C-alpha cells in the first residue's frame, strides 16, 4: 500500500486520497472537501502539519513493508512512539486524507532530502553516518534542518515536537530535529503541489549523484519499485535488468511530463514494433561483419538450414504449401452446377465432371471453379445450336 500511495503522491491530491486505505472514517469526506478547496493559509498549513505529523506517525505504525519506512526502520519505532505522544499531546481529531497524503509525500521527501543533503554537504563522513543508521541520520537531518529549510516552522509545532522528544527516553535532539525536518518537508511539498509541480522524487533521483554507493543503491531500488508500480497497467519491466547496471538508462526518471503512464508504454511498444529499413539494414550489416565461419559441423548445419540448403526438421512435406480452402470446398462442388438444367444429359455430364474434380488433389479450388465455369460458358454458347436441334 505504501508503495502505491507513494507513486500516486505526485498526482492530484484527490486521487491519492481515494487510494488511501488507512484509518478512514467520517472525516474523509470533510477532509476531501478541504483538500479540494486547497486551503493553504498559514494556519491551515500548521494544522495540517500538526495533523500530518500525527497521521504520518500512525500511518507509520501500519506500514510494514515499504522501502522508505524500511530504511528508517530504526527511526520508525521511535517515531511511532513519538506519534502516540504527539497525538496524545495534540489531541488529534481530524486525520484527514489530505494529511495522509502529505505524510506520504513527506515521507518520500524524507528520502529525497537525505540525498540532497548528501549531495550538498558532500562529505564522506556524512555518507558513512548515513550508512550507519538512524543516529547518523538524525545528525544529518539536524544539519539539514539548520541549513536547508528557509521557511521557519510554526513555533507551536516546534514546541510540540520538542515536547514529544522530551517525553521520550531517546535522543531528544535527534527526534526533535527529525520531527522538524519532517514538518518542513510537508510545507515544502504542499507548496510545490500548490504550484502544480509533479512529484519531486523522480526529479531528485534523476539528479542524484552516483558517487556514493548507498544512495545510488537506494535510489535505484526505489526507482525500480516505483517503475514497477507505474508499469503495472502496461508492461512489466524487468527489475533485474536495472539491478545489473546500476547506472543504466532505466534508473528512475519517467518524468511523465507529457503524457500519462499508459500512453508512454504504448509509445515504447510502437517504436519497438516498427523498426525502420535503416535499422534492418544496420542489423544485417552487423550480422554480416560479426559472422564467423562455422567452427564445427553443427554450426555448418545451422547455417545451411538458414540458407535453405538443408530441410527443416521434423520434415513436413507440405511445408510452405498454402491452401486455405477446407475439404468441403474441394469435394462438395454441387453448388457450382446449380446454373445448369436439372435434368438431361448436360446435368448428367456435369455431375460426372464434378465427381472427377472432387477426386483431383492437384487442382486448387479456384482452378476447379474455373473448370466448371468454362463448361458453363461453353454450353451457353452452344445453346443456340442445341435449340435448333
Amino acid at each position: 500500500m505504501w508503495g502505491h500511495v507513494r507513486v500516486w503522491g505526485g498526482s492530484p491530491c484527490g486521487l491519492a486520497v481515494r487510494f488511501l486505505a488507512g484509518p478512514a472514517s467520517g472525516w474523509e469526506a470533510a477532509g476531501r472537501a478541504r483538500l479540494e478547496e486547497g486551503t493553504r493559509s498559514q494556519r491551515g498549513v500548521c494544522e495540517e502539519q500538526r495533523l500530518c505529523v500525527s497521521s504520518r506517525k500512525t500511518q507509520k505504525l501500519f506500514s510494514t513493508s515499504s522501502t522508505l519506512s524500511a530504511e528508517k526502520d530504526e527511526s520508525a519505532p521511535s517515531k511511532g512512539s513519538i506519534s502516540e505522544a504527539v497525538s496524545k499531546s495534540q489531541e488529534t481529531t481530524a486525520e484527514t486524507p489530505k494529511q495522509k497524503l502529505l505524510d506520504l509525500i513527506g515521507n518520500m521527501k524524507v528520502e529525497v532530502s537525505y540525498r540532497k543533503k548528501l549531495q550538498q554537504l558532500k562529505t564522506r563522513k556524512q555518507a558513512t553516518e548515513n550508512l550507519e543508521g538512524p543516529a547518523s541520520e538524525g545528525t544529518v537531518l539536524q544539519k539539514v534542518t539548520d541549513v536547508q529549510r528557509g521557511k521557519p516552522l510554526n513555533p507551536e509545532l516546534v514546541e510540540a515536537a520538542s515536547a514529544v522528544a522530551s517525553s521520550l527516553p531517546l535522543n531528544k535532539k535527534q527526534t526533535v530535529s527529525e520531527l522538524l525536518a519532517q514538518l518542513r518537508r510537508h510545507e515544502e511539498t504542499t507548496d510545490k503541489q500548490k504550484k502544480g509541480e509533479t512529484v519531486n522524487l523522480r526529479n531528485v533521483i534523476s539528479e542524484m549523484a552516483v558517487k556514493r554507493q548507498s544512495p545510488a543503491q537506494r535510489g535505484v531500488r526505489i526507482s525500480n519499485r516505483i517503475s514497477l508500480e507505474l508499469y503495472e497497467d502496461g508492461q512489466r519491466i524487468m527489475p533485474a535488468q536495472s539491478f545489473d547496471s546500476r547506472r543504466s538508462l532505466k534508473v528512475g526518471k519517467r518524468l511523465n511530463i507529457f503524457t500519462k503512464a499508459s500512453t508512454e508504454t504504448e509509445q515504447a511498444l510502437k517504436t519497438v514494433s516498427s523498426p525502420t529499413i535503416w535499422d534492418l539494414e544496420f542489423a544485417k550489416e552487423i550480422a554480416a561483419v560479426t559472422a564467423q565461419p562455422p567452427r564445427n559441423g553443427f554450426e555448418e548445419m545451422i547455417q545451411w538450414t538458414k540458407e535453405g540448403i538443408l530441410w527443416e526438421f521434423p520434415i513436413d512435406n507440405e511445408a510452405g504449401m498454402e491452401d486455405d480452402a477446407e475439404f468441403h470446398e474441394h469435394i462438395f462442388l454441387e453448388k457450382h452446377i446449380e446454373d445448369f438444367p436439372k435434368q438431361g444429359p448436360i446435368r448428367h455430364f456435369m455431375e460426372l465432371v464434378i465427381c472427377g474434380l472432387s477426386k483431383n488433389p492437384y487442382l486448387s479450388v479456384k482452378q476447379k471453379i474455373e473448370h466448371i465455369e468454362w463448361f458453363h460458358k461453353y454450353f451457353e454458347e452452344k445453346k443456340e445450336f442445341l435449340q435448333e436441334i
Partner: protein
Amino acid sequence: HVPPRTEKMAVDQDWSSVYPTAAAFKPASVPLPIRMGYPVKRGVPPPKEGNLELIKIPNFLHLTPPAIKKHCAALKDFCTEWPSALDSDEKCEKHFPIEIETVDYISSGTSIRNPKARVVTLRVKLSNLNLDDHAKKKLIKLVGERYCKDTDMLTITTDRCPLRRQNYDYGIHLLTVLYHESWKTEMWESEKSEEDMEEYIWENSRSQNNALDTLLQIKASENDSNVTKEDLLASEVVKNYRSSVIALKNEGETEKNMSQYKESVKKLLNIQALP
C-alpha cells in the same frame, strides 16, 4: 612433414568432438589401422591412407553410443513425457479408439514435396462405436470393403484433397456421417429381402416352413390335429432342428454342424437309428 593427428590422440579422448557430424572418412583423424580394398596379388588390402574405398562408403563414426547419448540428452528438453496412465495397448485403445496414420517422406533432393504425404488413414473398431444391431448392419453395408470382419476394424483412407489436414477433416467427416446415417432408418429399408440379409434367420424361412409342414402332415396322418404351429415351434425337436440349420448356414459345413443336423433331423422325423 607434419605427423598425422592420430599420433597425438589420447586413448580416452572425446570421440564425439572429432566426428560431431557426418563427415567423410579422414585417415589422419581416425586412429584405426583399417585396410580396405581388393588385395593385389600376394598382398594385403591397401591401407587407409588415400583409400578411396573408405572415403566413398558412408560411415557412422559420428554416431557412437556416447554421441547418441549426448544427442538424446540434448533432445530431451524438447520432448514431453508419455502419459503414465497409458501404459498398455488396451488403455490406449479404450481412451483413443480412433487411430490416424500419416506418412512423412524423406529424400535427398532439392524439393521437399511428396504427393504421397497427403494420404490419411483412419482406423476404428466398430465395437468402440455406439451402434445397435440395425445400425451396425447398415454401416457395414454402407462401407462395404472398408470393413474387416475378422478384426472388426473399419478403415477409411482419404487422399482426395491436396493437403493432409484437409484429408484428415474429410475422414472425420465421413466417419461422422456414416455413424449418423446408420442410425437413421429410411422408408425403403423395410423392403429388405432375404437375399439382403447378412446372416441366416430361421424364422419365416423356407426351412421353417418346410419343417412345420412336414410335421403337420405327419401329425395329420396320425390323426393328431390338435397340434398347432406354435406348439410345434415350441417343441424341443423343432428347436433343435432350428439351431442346427442356423449353425450350418452361418458357420458353414463342419463335422460338428453336420452331425448335429443329422441328429436333429432324426429326432424331428422320429427316425430310429439303424441297428
